[in-house]
């Protein structure tokens, strides 16, 4: 059967050639591919800055670069990774590509707005990169006032404007998804027949639409303060620098859920597909996404326990912070239960899913330390926090992204990647990641503050371990670039459904047609039913 597989004659990639057919496209799939390329470039840039940071921290003295250069490194690393890689990563690439076929739609509700969001992302990126090229910015990605408003003399305005502009791209993507999921579902596609990936994106989109405007207005206030000398957060004029933190975290805490929720959605798809089994407790998994999105908005001040907020407020926010733990735990338990009596196979995406489980567990559980008041006083702004959020953002979000990218790569390109190298890469990423970030928990509990250019000698061993791990991690991320590009031409033809997955996007050809389906599909079954898929399965490892 394998030798009969061919790339279909007509598909979205050969429907129009030349730059113009890409830049003016309204096809969600082509926009997703352009997003994929853009965020990969940003990931590479952010990774280079991370490399600079780890090189500097290999020795306790500040001897690799000057202090101000180092400060610019971690700031640009944070800004690029958070606003230009993680936030658009899964939604704008995988969500953009997969949501319409998953719900049986021809396209997103607003294809032109989708293209507009890409252009806005580019413009925002240009602003921020221009700031970087002309000297960078050294405030940390958090832009705390009054340092950012008056003390720093680096390029804060263009960087902040870049983030402001990119925020609109995020808003438009979220808006588009919500309307699409509400209004574009195929006949028979009820809410409880939606793949969990779609549910996760619905929750993500809510956060994007509701949270992003608040960071936008915060940046506007920072902008008028810095550019025109208005006094809004300036303590010397009676302003409150802590108000900036409140407003900043009102968005930036939920922003973490913009990154992790889609990854949780990817996980649900992977766990079900590779254990050939219906997801355990579908509605609990679906609603836990919404719960995380909503709870995410009422916990922000746990970033500010030592920032001078009142004792009472700290207790309220600590209490609420634990509420996020419950839906997260429910998800993990349901994935575990899904494996029970499954038919589990370990293709590369499943390896990423397993890696995700381990890292997300550690990332999520260490969050409990930070939500606990008495504990957070010691751990706040130390490397413990750095390790924790990297376990969530890299161990969680990027593992999910990589898993999803491998999972849908045959759908996007019509070809399979190298099985051998992709497994190597998944293992390298997992091992390298743990080696990089686990020592940071320890060094954090020892008290090493974050954003330090130099540090006491006794902390060197742990930092060297971390730097060594980072090089393994870097290798793990570089490998896919090679074998995925190689697969575009030389990869084995995948066929419509190489993994025997059950969701709707696998029932069209790979790569799909521009309009996704030849006929409007009518959905008659529940999600994740594998009884009927087996016959169509064509590729087994």
């Amino acid at each position: 059967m394998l030798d009969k597989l061919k790339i279909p004659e007509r598909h979205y990639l050969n429907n129009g050639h030349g730059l113009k057919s890409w830049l003016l496209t309204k096809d969600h799939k082509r926009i997703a591919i352009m997003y994929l390329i853009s965020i990969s470039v940003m990931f590479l840039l952010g990774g280079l800055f991370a490399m600079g940071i780890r090189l500097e921290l290999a020795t306790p003295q500040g001897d690799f670069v000057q202090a101000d250069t180092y400060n610019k490194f971690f700031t640009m690393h944070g800004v690029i990774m958070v606003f230009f890689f993680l936030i658009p990563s899964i939604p704008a690439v995988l969500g953009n590509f997969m949501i319409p076929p998953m719900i049986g739609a021809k396209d997103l509700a607003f294809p032109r707005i989708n293209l507009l969001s890409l252009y806005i992302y580019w413009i925002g990126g240009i602003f921020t990169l221009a700031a970087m090229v002309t000297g960078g910015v050294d405030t940390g990605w958090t832009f705390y006032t009054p340092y950012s408003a008056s003390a720093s003399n680096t390029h804060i305005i263009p960087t902040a404007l870049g983030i402001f502009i990119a925020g609109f791209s995020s808003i438009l993507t979220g808006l588009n998804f919500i309307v699409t999921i509400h209004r574009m579902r195929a006949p028979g596609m009820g809410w409880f027949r939606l793949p969990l990936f779609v549910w996760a994106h619905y929750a993500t989109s809510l956060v994007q639409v509701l949270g992003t405007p608040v960071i936008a207005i915060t940046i506007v206030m920072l902008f008028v303060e810095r550019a025109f000398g208005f006094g809004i957060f300036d303590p010397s004029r009676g302003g409150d620098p802590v108000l900036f933190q409140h407003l900043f975290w009102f968005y930036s805490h939920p922003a973490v859920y913009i990154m992790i929720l889609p990854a949780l959605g990817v996980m649900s798809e992977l766990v079900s597909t590779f254990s050939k089994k219906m997801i355990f407790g579908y509605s609990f998994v679906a609603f836990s996404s919404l719960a995380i999105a909503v709870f995410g908005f009422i916990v922000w001040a746990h970033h500010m326990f030592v920032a001078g907020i009142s004792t009472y407020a700290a207790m309220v926010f600590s209490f609420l912070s634990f509420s996020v733990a419950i839906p997260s735990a429910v998800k993990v338990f349901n994935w575990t239960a899904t494996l029970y009596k499954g038919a589990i196979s370990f293709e590369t995406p499943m390896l990423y899913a397993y890696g995700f489980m381990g890292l997300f567990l550690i990332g999520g559980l260490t969050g409990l330390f930070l939500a606990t008041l008495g504990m957070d006083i010691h751990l706040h702004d130390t490397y413990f926090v750095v390790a924790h959020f990297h376990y969530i953002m890299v161990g969680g979000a990027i593992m999910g992204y990589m898993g999803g990218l491998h999972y849908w790569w045959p759908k996007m390109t019509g070809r399979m990647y190298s099985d051998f190298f992709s497994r190597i890469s998944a293992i390298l990423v997992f091992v390298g990641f743990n080696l990089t970030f686990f020592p940071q928990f320890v060094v954090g509990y020892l008290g090493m503050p974050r954003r330090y250019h130099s540090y006491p000698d006794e902390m060197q061993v742990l930092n060297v371990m971390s730097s060594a791990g980072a090089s393994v991690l870097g290798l793990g991320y570089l490998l896919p670039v090679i074998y995925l590009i190689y697969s575009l031409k030389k990869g084995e033809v995948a066929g419509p459904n190489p993994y025997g997955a059950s969701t709707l996007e696998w029932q069209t050809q790979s790569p799909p047609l521009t309009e996704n389906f030849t006929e409007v599909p009518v959905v008659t079954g529940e999600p994740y039913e594998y009884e009927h898929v087996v016959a169509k399965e064509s590729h087994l490892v």
Partner: protein
Amino acid sequence: MSDHASHGSGHISPISLYITIFLALMVGTALTVGAAFVDLGSLNFPVAMLIAVTKAVLVVWYFMHVKWQSHLTKLTLATGLFFLAILLGMMLIDYTSKDFIAMPRPTDAAGQMAAPEPASH
């Protein structure tokens, strides 16, 4: 196709309704200004906000046709207001319970550490 116009956002209201709402909004404006010149003690602000909210509801309900819109539109609007309430309300948790001490700005930036009296709570 014209049957679509009879439901949902396609509702056509009589001009007289729009004029009535307009007049109500103008009266509301006059009321706000009038109320501001009367000393209502601590009630001045709530009254002003009550009038503003009433005016906003009139605009949303009639000018923006929400009255005739689908449940989804109403739900969307409610979601927005709910999260606005979270933003305003949760922020107040900190600000209403703050026990920090107001500090006079030291004028000599040269590093004179004038030790102020310990604050009394």
